[in-house]
């Protein structure tokens, strides 16, 4: 097979997978292809997709971020705290995003300046941030946050019949796609992941690029957290636990290489949709969540195995 057709096969592989899985579930379940369900699905997917978008940047630099779920929880809890203290909702949300940025930056600084492997560094901060969340919330949900239209909109609202979180997801997708493919920063992300020494010698400040990448991921995690918080109108101390796994899975299914330097955010969106469709479809079919996990695992394996076949 020629290099060209192989290249495009690797590119459309995940999309093909999504189409096949969607059709199978559509045939098996009558409720799958209803407008309500599709919109519901998009809203469900948005949380994982936002985190996975950030994770894509991290993995492109040959890193990993295990702390996304904890950042989500801590950012949400702090935002909820600000809201209950009477802060303007818009300002509180912005503060929440900045907190996410800072928590992510801490990861980045530990990894680059402290020269700690990303896996270890974020494993540690995952625990630390979760602990901090429990301390801050005293282990109890923070409720009665805000009844402002704006805050409710984020998680529960609709624009022209489309769930607001889905719109946020789509906007972020295009924005991040543009950043990755069309900006200097995007190029630097790919370059650093592809060969850090060569990039540094080409004048790219690899440390700075990495710190930004983890910051971005932190911010996106809190954004996902605020969507959940708004929807539930409460911040849960255990929110987001294990979310890192679905995010990493979406990135990997989407064909991004864990070795860094290779991958696309489009793949990640498709990966997140695949996971969402499986979750949603199997729920509709009343498949026990125990089996759901097995199915998800198998899909991840298949994606990686197929990807290996088409280098």
């Amino acid at each position, binding site marked *: 097979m*020629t*290099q*060209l057709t192989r290249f495009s096969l690797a590119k459309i592989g995940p999309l093909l997978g999504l189409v096949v899985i969607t059709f199978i579930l559509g045939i098996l379940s009558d409720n799958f292809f209803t407008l309500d369900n599709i919109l519901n699905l998009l809203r469900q997917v948005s949380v994982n997709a936002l985190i996975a978008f950030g994770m894509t940047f991290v993995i492109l630099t040959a890193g990993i971020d295990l702390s996304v779920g904890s950042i989500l929880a801590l950012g949400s809890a702090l935002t909820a705290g600000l809201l209950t203290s009477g802060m303007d909702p818009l300002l509180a949300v912005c503060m929440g995003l900045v907190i996410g940025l800072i928590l992510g930056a801490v990861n980045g600084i530990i990894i680059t300046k402290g020269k700690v492997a990303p896996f270890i560094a974020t494993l540690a901060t995952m625990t630390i941030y979760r602990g901090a969340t429990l301390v801050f919330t005293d282990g109890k949900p923070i409720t009665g946050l805000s009844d402002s239209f704006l805050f409710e909109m984020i998680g529960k609202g609709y624009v022209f019949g489309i769930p607001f979180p889905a719109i946020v997801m789509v906007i972020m997708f295009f924005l991040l796609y543009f950043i990755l493919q*069309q*900006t*200097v*920063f*995007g*190029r*630097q992300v*790919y*370059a650093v992941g*592809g*060969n850090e*020494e*060569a*990039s*540094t*010698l*080409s*004048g*790219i*400040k690899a440390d700075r690029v990495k710190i930004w990448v983890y910051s971005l991921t932190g911010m996106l995690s809190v954004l996902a957290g605020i969507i959940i918080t708004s929807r539930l109108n409460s911040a849960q101390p255990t929110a987001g636990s294990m979310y890192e796994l679905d995010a990493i899975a979406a990135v990997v299914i989407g064909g991004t290489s864990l070795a860094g*330097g*290779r991958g696309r955010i489009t793949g990640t969106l498709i990966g997140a949709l695949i996971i969402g469709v499986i979750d949603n479809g199997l729920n509709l079919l009343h498949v026990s969540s125990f089996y759901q996990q097995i199915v998800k695992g198998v899909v991840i394996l298949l994606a990686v195995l197929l990807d290996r076949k088409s280098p």
Partner: protein
Amino acid sequence: MKASPIIEMANIDKYFAGNPVLKAVDFQVLPGEIHALMGENGAGKSTLVKILTGIYRRDQGVIKWKNKEVVFKNPKQAEQNGIIVIHQELNIIPHLTVSQNLFLGKDITYGKTGILNKKEMHQRTKRRLYELGVTNIHPNDIAGNLSIGKQQLVEIARALAANAEMIIMDEPTAALTEREIERLFHVIQKLKNQGVSIIYISHRMEEIFDICDRITVLRDGQTIGTKLIADTSFTDIVRMMVGRELGDRFPERVNVPGKVIFEVENISKEDLFENISFSVRKGEILGIAGLMGAGRSEVMEAIFGFSNKDHGAIRINGKLVTIKHPRDAIEAGIGFITEDRKSKGLIMHAPIRENIASANLKAISTYGVIVNSKETLLIEALINRLQIRAISSEQEAKSLSGGNQQKVVLAKWLGINPKILILDEPTRGVDIGAKKEIYKIINELTKSGVAIIMISSELPEILGMSDRIMVMHEGKIATFLDRQEANQERIMAAATGGVRHDSTY
């Protein structure tokens, strides 16, 4: 009586992405001969070797090993049959020790217990290295910490340890110094006397005449011919390779250097180099000679801000500059072509375009957004200027021939329009025609006032190109020589510690 060939490849075709790379190639090697395989960058030498050892599938043709038709599925199978390749791109595992690398997959154990007999492996490693005449590599050294030259020697030792009947060396001397090369040639002669056949790929003419018995030349994926070395000449071979007369090896230099632009004052780094001071004029080429490990690359990396220095100053046009990161150096107008293109020069799986762009992101963007038209323009211009041979600018760097990879690195740095260009082994692995092209480009750069600092382990290159030569020995400046007074003997004497010359320019 004519011996029958030990390896016979007939009518070999190979396509990559629909492009023919080998076209009906015929190639034979006799038992116990040293057979040179030559051709321009991208002629298909490495591809032919990779087909022979099962890394690539041939699209057509027959391979016979000892008169039996074979198709090796992978290099391991070839190795079991007695064929070993030392590849152009080294295959050392960097975090393992020398001894572990040598016995990778062939570990010696206590009987069948599976417990490693480290002592024995250590001893044998030492012996192999000793046979190669290498005494400054310890079996417990971490391979990745060794210089490329030393890593190369470890690879050769590994091949010897496997008792091969045929060894294929793809540009084995590209990273070695004269002395190490001499040592290697000794070993090659010894192997030949033991009846081992050797396929020797190199772009260095002198070597071919030194040790080879016959030569086969490839051009654009076709066999041009096979000749006895004794019946051929330098110009003959060049004509076969490039299909035309090439003229002199080095272009004429009639440049008059201008005022001093770049000054390095007393830079030092513990254990690596000490009190290095030199200056370069506009339009001047300062050659830097020395043995492998003399600290030449380390000095340049420190100047460029890739590693730090303990003290010392750098001036450009008389003004002090602070360089803490390569970015600072680039902004000050310095370009740096590193010696190790695989690990420090290129992102191997990225396309040519992204590789060239990586040092030129500022030039191809506005407000941080890449402007595609600017990028295309820059990339096309550089690909044309350097005559990079590729299917398109989207081709991955790793699938380019060695010489073309080097041109991509060069292109990347010409893009920044440097005022000062540091070249570390700029023509390593580059064919004779392309070498001359690179020399011409260097000459043109000096004409437009660029100051060049060129590290090279090829003395003819140093002598043919430099206006002035700085020789280093064990981290110190041994001497400076002018173009007129320099010759091979003087440089070698200084490089090996014969002369010390403490005054600085």
